[in-house]
Protein backbone atom coordinates (compact mmCIF):
# COMPACT_ATOMS: atom_id res chain seq x y z
CA UNK A 1 0.00 0.00 0.00
CA UNK A 2 2.75 2.41 1.06
CA UNK A 3 4.90 1.52 -1.92
CA UNK A 4 1.93 2.01 -4.19
CA UNK A 5 1.30 5.47 -2.68
CA UNK A 6 4.97 6.39 -3.16
CA UNK A 7 4.81 5.34 -6.80
CA UNK A 8 1.68 7.45 -7.20
CA UNK A 9 3.56 10.66 -6.37
CA UNK A 10 2.46 13.49 -4.08
CA UNK A 11 0.23 15.24 -6.62
CA UNK A 12 -1.75 12.17 -7.54
CA UNK A 13 -1.97 11.11 -3.90
CA UNK A 14 -3.41 14.51 -2.97
CA UNK A 15 -5.85 14.33 -5.88
CA UNK A 16 -6.93 10.91 -4.66
CA UNK A 17 -7.37 12.28 -1.13
CA UNK A 18 -9.49 15.16 -2.48
CA UNK A 19 -11.55 12.69 -4.49
CA UNK A 20 -12.22 10.50 -1.44
CA UNK A 21 -13.05 13.48 0.77
CA UNK A 22 -15.28 14.88 -1.97
CA UNK A 23 -17.08 11.56 -2.29
CA UNK A 24 -17.56 11.54 1.49
CA UNK A 25 -18.87 15.09 1.36
CA UNK A 26 -21.87 13.91 -0.66
CA UNK A 27 -23.39 12.74 2.59
CA UNK A 28 -22.53 15.87 4.56
CA UNK A 29 -25.22 17.65 6.53
CA UNK A 30 -23.75 21.14 6.57
CA UNK A 31 -26.70 23.07 7.99
CA UNK A 32 -27.14 22.27 11.67
CA UNK A 33 -30.65 21.69 12.96
CA UNK A 34 -32.10 24.67 14.72
CA UNK A 35 -32.55 23.02 18.10
CA UNK A 36 -30.93 25.13 20.77
CA UNK A 37 -29.41 23.73 23.89
CA UNK A 38 -28.47 25.47 27.10
CA UNK A 39 -26.23 23.81 29.62
CA UNK A 40 -28.26 23.08 32.73
CA UNK A 41 -25.63 24.08 35.28
CA UNK A 42 -24.81 27.20 33.29
CA UNK A 43 -28.44 28.31 33.36
CA UNK A 44 -28.88 27.52 37.06
CA UNK A 45 -25.63 29.22 38.02
CA UNK A 46 -26.52 32.34 36.07
CA UNK A 47 -29.88 32.37 37.79
CA UNK A 48 -28.49 31.70 41.27
CA UNK A 49 -25.85 34.39 40.97
CA UNK A 50 -28.43 36.80 39.51
CA UNK A 51 -26.18 37.15 36.48
CA UNK A 52 -29.06 36.88 34.04
CA UNK A 53 -30.94 40.09 34.76
CA UNK A 54 -30.43 43.78 35.41
CA UNK A 55 -32.62 45.60 37.97
CA UNK A 56 -34.46 48.62 36.47
CA UNK A 57 -32.64 51.10 38.72
CA UNK A 58 -29.26 49.81 37.55
CA UNK A 59 -30.24 50.03 33.87
CA UNK A 60 -31.52 53.57 34.49
CA UNK A 61 -28.09 54.38 35.87
CA UNK A 62 -26.39 52.99 32.76
CA UNK A 63 -28.64 55.06 30.48
CA UNK A 64 -28.05 58.24 32.48
CA UNK A 65 -24.29 57.65 32.42
CA UNK A 66 -24.53 57.21 28.65
CA UNK A 67 -22.75 53.85 28.80
CA UNK A 68 -22.23 52.39 25.34
CA UNK A 69 -20.88 48.92 26.17
CA UNK A 70 -24.21 47.15 25.76
CA UNK A 71 -27.12 46.87 23.33
CA UNK A 72 -30.62 47.52 24.65
CA UNK A 73 -33.24 45.52 22.76
CA UNK A 74 -37.00 46.20 22.92
CA UNK A 75 -38.80 42.96 22.03
CA UNK A 76 -42.30 44.42 21.68
CA UNK A 77 -44.02 45.23 18.38
CA UNK A 78 -43.45 48.46 16.50
CA UNK A 79 -46.63 50.17 17.73
CA UNK A 80 -45.80 49.63 21.38
CA UNK A 81 -42.23 50.71 20.67
CA UNK A 82 -43.38 53.91 19.00
CA UNK A 83 -45.71 54.60 21.91
CA UNK A 84 -43.00 54.37 24.54
CA UNK A 85 -39.57 52.82 24.74
CA UNK A 86 -36.48 53.21 26.86
CA UNK A 87 -33.94 55.71 25.58
CA UNK A 88 -31.20 54.05 23.42
CA UNK A 89 -33.37 50.94 22.85
CA UNK A 90 -33.49 49.20 19.45
CA UNK A 91 -36.75 47.60 18.40
CA UNK A 92 -36.27 43.92 17.52
CA UNK A 93 -39.31 41.63 17.81
CA UNK A 94 -38.55 38.27 19.40
CA UNK A 95 -39.09 36.48 16.07
CA UNK A 96 -36.30 38.45 14.40
CA UNK A 97 -33.73 38.48 17.17
CA UNK A 98 -31.61 35.55 15.97
CA UNK A 99 -31.11 37.20 12.57
CA UNK A 100 -30.65 40.75 13.85
CA UNK A 101 -26.85 40.71 13.72
CA UNK A 102 -26.02 40.94 17.40
CA UNK A 103 -22.51 39.74 18.18
CA UNK A 104 -21.92 36.84 20.49
CA UNK A 105 -19.43 38.76 22.59
CA UNK A 106 -21.69 41.76 23.10
CA UNK A 107 -23.53 42.61 26.26
CA UNK A 108 -27.20 42.48 25.38
CA UNK A 109 -30.11 43.62 27.57
CA UNK A 110 -33.56 42.52 26.40
CA UNK A 111 -36.93 43.71 27.69
CA UNK A 112 -40.64 43.52 27.00
CA UNK A 113 -43.70 44.47 29.06
CA UNK A 114 -43.35 41.61 31.52
CA UNK A 115 -40.70 39.00 32.13
CA UNK A 116 -41.72 36.15 29.82
CA UNK A 117 -40.77 37.37 26.32
CA UNK A 118 -37.46 38.61 27.68
CA UNK A 119 -36.81 35.23 29.30
CA UNK A 120 -37.61 33.50 26.00
CA UNK A 121 -35.20 35.78 24.19
CA UNK A 122 -32.60 35.12 26.91
CA UNK A 123 -32.92 31.36 26.45
CA UNK A 124 -32.88 31.61 22.65
CA UNK A 125 -29.78 33.81 22.57
CA UNK A 126 -27.90 31.84 25.22
CA UNK A 127 -28.76 28.64 23.37
CA UNK A 128 -27.24 30.10 20.23
CA UNK A 129 -24.00 30.98 21.96
CA UNK A 130 -24.49 34.62 22.94
CA UNK A 131 -22.50 35.08 26.12
CA UNK A 132 -23.65 38.29 27.80
CA UNK A 133 -27.46 38.27 27.68
CA UNK A 134 -29.48 39.95 30.42
CA UNK A 135 -33.17 40.66 30.92
CA UNK A 136 -34.56 43.80 32.44
CA UNK A 137 -35.86 42.45 35.73
CA UNK A 138 -39.64 42.72 35.78
CA UNK A 139 -39.72 44.24 32.31
CA UNK A 140 -41.31 47.58 31.48
CA UNK A 141 -43.87 47.08 34.26
CA UNK A 142 -41.11 47.11 36.85
CA UNK A 143 -39.42 49.99 35.03
CA UNK A 144 -42.60 52.09 35.44
CA UNK A 145 -43.01 51.11 39.08
CA UNK A 146 -39.45 51.56 40.20
CA UNK A 147 -37.84 54.10 37.89
CA UNK A 148 -40.56 56.30 36.40
CA UNK A 149 -42.95 56.41 39.34
CA UNK A 150 -41.03 55.39 42.47
CA UNK A 151 -43.13 55.13 45.63
CA UNK A 152 -42.23 57.00 48.79
CA UNK A 153 -42.12 54.40 51.58
CA UNK A 154 -44.45 54.99 54.54
CA UNK A 155 -42.64 56.50 57.54
CA UNK A 156 -39.22 56.22 55.88
CA UNK A 157 -35.96 55.94 57.73
CA UNK A 158 -33.38 58.61 56.83
CA UNK A 159 -31.63 56.04 54.66
CA UNK A 160 -34.83 55.17 52.80
CA UNK A 161 -35.57 58.87 52.49
CA UNK A 162 -32.21 59.49 50.82
CA UNK A 163 -32.69 56.56 48.47
CA UNK A 164 -36.15 57.78 47.52
CA UNK A 165 -34.86 61.26 46.78
CA UNK A 166 -32.24 59.81 44.48
CA UNK A 167 -34.86 57.66 42.76
CA UNK A 168 -37.12 60.70 42.44
CA UNK A 169 -34.33 62.59 40.73
CA UNK A 170 -33.76 59.74 38.26
CA UNK A 171 -37.52 59.50 37.65
CA UNK A 172 -37.60 63.16 36.67
CA UNK A 173 -34.68 62.64 34.28
CA UNK A 174 -36.76 60.01 32.46
CA UNK A 175 -39.88 62.18 32.51
CA UNK A 176 -41.58 60.23 35.29
CA UNK A 177 -42.94 61.39 38.61
CA UNK A 178 -42.29 60.15 42.15
CA UNK A 179 -45.37 59.10 44.06
CA UNK A 180 -46.14 59.90 47.66
CA UNK A 181 -47.07 57.00 49.89
CA UNK A 182 -50.53 58.36 50.63
CA UNK A 183 -51.60 58.83 47.03
CA UNK A 184 -53.44 55.54 46.73
CA UNK A 185 -50.46 53.41 45.73
CA UNK A 186 -50.80 51.24 42.67
CA UNK A 187 -54.22 52.57 41.87
CA UNK A 188 -52.64 55.62 40.33
CA UNK A 189 -53.21 55.51 36.63
CA UNK A 190 -50.09 55.85 34.55
CA UNK A 191 -50.70 57.85 31.40
CA UNK A 192 -47.97 56.63 29.06
CA UNK A 193 -48.95 58.86 26.14
CA UNK A 194 -48.44 61.96 28.26
CA UNK A 195 -45.09 60.54 29.30
CA UNK A 196 -44.01 60.09 25.71
CA UNK A 197 -44.24 63.83 25.12
CA UNK A 198 -41.89 64.57 27.95
CA UNK A 199 -39.35 61.80 27.37
CA UNK A 200 -37.45 63.27 24.43
CA UNK A 201 -36.74 66.53 26.22
CA UNK A 202 -34.86 64.79 28.97
CA UNK A 203 -33.44 62.14 26.72
CA UNK A 204 -32.20 64.44 24.01
CA UNK A 205 -28.89 66.07 24.92
CA UNK A 206 -27.14 63.83 27.40
CA UNK A 207 -28.30 60.40 26.24
CA UNK A 208 -27.16 58.57 23.13
CA UNK A 209 -29.83 58.29 20.44
CA UNK A 210 -31.84 55.11 20.06
CA UNK A 211 -30.24 52.74 17.60
CA UNK A 212 -26.85 54.24 18.33
CA UNK A 213 -25.68 50.70 18.94
CA UNK A 214 -25.35 50.16 15.22
CA UNK A 215 -22.16 52.17 15.09
CA UNK A 216 -20.60 49.82 17.61
CA UNK A 217 -20.86 46.83 15.31
CA UNK A 218 -17.79 44.99 14.21
CA UNK A 219 -15.74 45.99 11.19
CA UNK A 220 -17.35 45.77 7.78
CA UNK A 221 -16.94 42.37 6.26
CA UNK A 222 -15.79 41.43 2.82
CA UNK A 223 -12.60 41.83 0.87
Amino acid at each position, binding site marked *: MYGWLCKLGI*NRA*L*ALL*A*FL*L*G*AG*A*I*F*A*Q*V*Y*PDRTISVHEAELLTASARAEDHVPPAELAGWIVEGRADYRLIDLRDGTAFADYHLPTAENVPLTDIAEYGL*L*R*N*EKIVVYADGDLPAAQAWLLLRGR*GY*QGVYTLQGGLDAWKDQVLFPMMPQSPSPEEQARFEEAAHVAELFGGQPRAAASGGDAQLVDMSALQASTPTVAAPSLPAAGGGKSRR*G*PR*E*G*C
Partner: protein
Amino acid sequence: MNAPLYKFGAFGDETSLVVAFVIGIGFGWFLERAGFGNARKLMAQFYLTDMAVFKVMFSAVVTAMLGTTYLAWAGWLDLSLVYYVPTYWITAIVGGLLMGVGFVIGGYCPGTSVASMATGRIDGLVYVGGFAAGTVGFAVGYPIFKDLLTMGNLGVLTLPEVTGVPWGIVAFGVVLMAIGGFIGATWVERWMAAKADATSSAD
Protein backbone atom coordinates in the same frame (compact mmCIF):
# COMPACT_ATOMS: atom_id res chain seq x y z
CA MET B 1 -14.84 26.29 20.36
CA ASN B 2 -17.04 27.15 17.42
CA ALA B 3 -16.35 28.99 14.22
CA PRO B 4 -16.61 31.66 12.85
CA LEU B 5 -14.33 32.49 15.77
CA TYR B 6 -14.85 36.25 15.60
CA LYS B 7 -18.63 36.02 15.61
CA PHE B 8 -18.61 33.61 18.52
CA GLY B 9 -16.54 36.11 20.45
CA ALA B 10 -13.28 34.12 20.62
CA PHE B 11 -11.47 37.43 20.09
CA GLY B 12 -12.32 41.10 19.72
CA ASP B 13 -11.69 43.81 17.13
CA GLU B 14 -8.04 44.41 18.03
CA THR B 15 -7.09 40.74 18.11
CA SER B 16 -8.86 40.21 14.80
CA LEU B 17 -6.28 42.53 13.21
CA VAL B 18 -3.48 40.37 14.61
CA VAL B 19 -5.21 37.25 13.30
CA ALA B 20 -5.60 38.88 9.87
CA PHE B 21 -1.89 39.80 9.93
CA VAL B 22 -0.81 36.25 10.74
CA ILE B 23 -3.09 34.78 8.06
CA GLY B 24 -1.80 37.41 5.60
CA ILE B 25 1.82 36.49 6.27
CA GLY B 26 0.96 32.81 5.77
CA PHE B 27 -0.87 33.61 2.53
CA GLY B 28 2.11 35.59 1.25
CA TRP B 29 4.52 32.83 2.22
CA PHE B 30 2.58 30.25 0.24
CA LEU B 31 2.25 32.59 -2.75
CA GLU B 32 6.04 32.97 -2.75
CA ARG B 33 6.49 29.21 -2.28
CA ALA B 34 4.34 28.61 -5.37
CA GLY B 35 6.59 31.00 -7.30
CA PHE B 36 3.96 33.73 -7.57
CA GLY B 37 6.34 36.44 -6.38
CA ASN B 38 7.69 36.30 -9.91
CA ALA B 39 5.75 38.11 -12.65
CA ARG B 40 7.15 35.75 -15.33
CA LYS B 41 5.62 32.75 -13.58
CA LEU B 42 2.25 34.54 -13.36
CA MET B 43 2.37 35.70 -16.98
CA ALA B 44 3.14 32.16 -18.16
CA GLN B 45 -0.43 31.35 -17.10
CA PHE B 46 -1.83 33.77 -19.68
CA TYR B 47 0.32 32.20 -22.41
CA LEU B 48 -0.66 28.71 -21.20
CA THR B 49 2.97 27.60 -20.90
CA ASP B 50 2.77 27.13 -17.11
CA MET B 51 -0.57 26.43 -15.49
CA ALA B 52 0.70 26.76 -11.90
CA VAL B 53 -1.65 29.67 -11.09
CA PHE B 54 -4.68 27.67 -12.15
CA LYS B 55 -3.53 24.60 -10.24
CA VAL B 56 -2.61 26.40 -7.03
CA MET B 57 -5.77 28.52 -6.94
CA PHE B 58 -8.06 25.58 -7.74
CA SER B 59 -6.27 23.46 -5.10
CA ALA B 60 -6.91 26.25 -2.60
CA VAL B 61 -10.60 26.33 -3.55
CA VAL B 62 -10.94 22.56 -3.13
CA THR B 63 -9.00 22.52 0.16
CA ALA B 64 -11.06 25.35 1.65
CA MET B 65 -14.32 23.86 0.39
CA LEU B 66 -13.62 20.40 1.80
CA GLY B 67 -12.42 21.89 5.08
CA THR B 68 -15.53 24.05 5.38
CA THR B 69 -17.80 21.15 4.51
CA TYR B 70 -16.30 18.77 7.05
CA LEU B 71 -16.08 21.40 9.82
CA ALA B 72 -19.73 22.30 9.26
CA TRP B 73 -20.66 18.62 9.20
CA ALA B 74 -18.86 18.08 12.50
CA GLY B 75 -20.79 21.02 13.92
CA TRP B 76 -17.72 23.18 14.53
CA LEU B 77 -18.58 25.78 11.93
CA ASP B 78 -21.92 27.56 11.64
CA LEU B 79 -22.28 28.27 7.92
CA SER B 80 -25.25 30.56 8.52
CA LEU B 81 -22.84 33.00 10.18
CA VAL B 82 -20.25 32.96 7.42
CA TYR B 83 -20.28 36.18 5.42
CA TYR B 84 -21.12 35.73 1.75
CA VAL B 85 -20.38 38.54 -0.67
CA PRO B 86 -23.57 39.46 -2.54
CA THR B 87 -23.51 39.11 -6.33
CA TYR B 88 -23.54 42.36 -8.32
CA TRP B 89 -23.11 40.89 -11.78
CA ILE B 90 -22.52 44.13 -13.73
CA THR B 91 -20.07 45.35 -11.10
CA ALA B 92 -18.35 41.97 -11.15
CA ILE B 93 -17.90 42.01 -14.94
CA VAL B 94 -16.57 45.57 -15.03
CA GLY B 95 -14.29 44.96 -12.03
CA GLY B 96 -13.14 41.61 -13.41
CA LEU B 97 -12.15 43.15 -16.75
CA LEU B 98 -10.27 46.01 -15.05
CA MET B 99 -8.53 43.54 -12.78
CA GLY B 100 -7.58 41.29 -15.72
CA VAL B 101 -6.21 44.18 -17.78
CA GLY B 102 -4.19 45.37 -14.77
CA PHE B 103 -2.94 41.83 -14.19
CA VAL B 104 -1.67 41.42 -17.74
CA ILE B 105 -0.12 44.91 -17.92
CA GLY B 106 1.48 44.86 -14.47
CA GLY B 107 2.31 41.18 -14.22
CA TYR B 108 0.78 40.83 -10.76
CA CYS B 109 -2.48 40.78 -8.87
CA PRO B 110 -2.63 42.77 -5.62
CA GLY B 111 -1.76 39.86 -3.31
CA THR B 112 1.16 38.56 -5.38
CA SER B 113 2.54 42.08 -5.87
CA VAL B 114 2.85 42.48 -2.08
CA ALA B 115 4.56 39.07 -1.82
CA SER B 116 6.86 40.12 -4.66
CA MET B 117 7.67 43.44 -2.99
CA ALA B 118 8.45 41.62 0.24
CA THR B 119 11.14 39.61 -1.57
CA GLY B 120 12.69 42.86 -2.82
CA ARG B 121 11.54 42.95 -6.42
CA ILE B 122 11.40 46.44 -7.93
CA ASP B 123 8.50 45.64 -10.28
CA GLY B 124 6.50 44.43 -7.26
CA LEU B 125 7.24 47.68 -5.45
CA VAL B 126 6.12 49.75 -8.45
CA TYR B 127 2.94 47.67 -8.74
CA VAL B 128 2.12 48.16 -5.02
CA GLY B 129 2.65 51.91 -5.48
CA GLY B 130 0.25 51.76 -8.42
CA PHE B 131 -2.50 49.96 -6.60
CA ALA B 132 -2.07 52.18 -3.53
CA ALA B 133 -2.54 55.20 -5.80
CA GLY B 134 -5.55 53.48 -7.39
CA THR B 135 -7.05 52.81 -3.96
CA VAL B 136 -6.68 56.46 -2.97
CA GLY B 137 -8.08 57.54 -6.34
CA PHE B 138 -11.07 55.27 -5.85
CA ALA B 139 -11.67 56.63 -2.34
CA VAL B 140 -11.47 60.24 -3.56
CA GLY B 141 -13.70 59.54 -6.55
CA TYR B 142 -16.10 57.39 -4.54
CA PRO B 143 -19.18 59.58 -5.26
CA ILE B 144 -18.61 58.95 -8.99
CA PHE B 145 -18.20 55.16 -8.64
CA LYS B 146 -20.81 54.71 -5.91
CA ASP B 147 -23.67 53.70 -8.21
CA LEU B 148 -21.47 51.31 -10.19
CA LEU B 149 -20.69 49.35 -7.03
CA THR B 150 -24.18 47.91 -6.67
CA MET B 151 -25.26 47.40 -10.29
CA GLY B 152 -26.96 44.15 -11.16
CA ASN B 153 -27.66 43.17 -7.55
CA LEU B 154 -28.74 39.54 -7.32
CA GLY B 155 -28.24 39.23 -3.57
CA VAL B 156 -26.33 36.40 -1.94
CA LEU B 157 -26.17 33.42 -4.28
CA THR B 158 -24.77 29.97 -3.57
CA LEU B 159 -24.62 27.06 -5.99
CA PRO B 160 -26.69 24.73 -3.76
CA GLU B 161 -29.45 27.35 -3.47
CA VAL B 162 -29.50 28.37 -7.14
CA THR B 163 -29.33 24.85 -8.59
CA GLY B 164 -31.23 23.08 -5.84
CA VAL B 165 -28.50 20.43 -5.77
CA PRO B 166 -27.50 19.43 -2.22
CA TRP B 167 -24.30 20.98 -0.84
CA GLY B 168 -22.36 17.70 -0.72
CA ILE B 169 -23.03 16.83 -4.34
CA VAL B 170 -21.97 20.31 -5.47
CA ALA B 171 -18.78 19.85 -3.41
CA PHE B 172 -18.06 16.49 -5.04
CA GLY B 173 -18.75 18.01 -8.44
CA VAL B 174 -16.23 20.80 -7.76
CA VAL B 175 -13.63 18.18 -6.73
CA LEU B 176 -14.22 16.26 -9.98
CA MET B 177 -13.99 19.52 -11.93
CA ALA B 178 -10.67 20.29 -10.22
CA ILE B 179 -9.18 16.87 -10.93
CA GLY B 180 -10.33 17.11 -14.55
CA GLY B 181 -8.90 20.61 -14.68
CA PHE B 182 -5.51 19.47 -13.35
CA ILE B 183 -5.32 16.68 -15.92
CA GLY B 184 -6.33 19.10 -18.67
CA ALA B 185 -3.85 21.74 -17.47
CA THR B 186 -0.97 19.27 -17.52
CA TRP B 187 -2.00 18.22 -21.02
CA VAL B 188 -2.07 21.87 -22.16
CA GLU B 189 1.40 22.44 -20.67
CA ARG B 190 2.82 19.43 -22.54
CA TRP B 191 1.16 20.53 -25.76
CA MET B 192 2.54 24.10 -25.43
CA ALA B 193 6.02 22.75 -24.61
CA ALA B 194 5.94 20.48 -27.66
CA LYS B 195 4.83 23.41 -29.81
CA ALA B 196 7.69 25.56 -28.43
CA ASP B 197 10.17 22.78 -29.20
CA ALA B 198 8.87 22.46 -32.74
CA THR B 199 9.15 26.24 -33.24
CA SER B 200 12.68 26.46 -31.85
CA SER B 201 13.95 23.44 -33.80
CA ALA B 202 12.45 24.92 -36.98
CA ASP B 203 14.52 28.11 -36.51
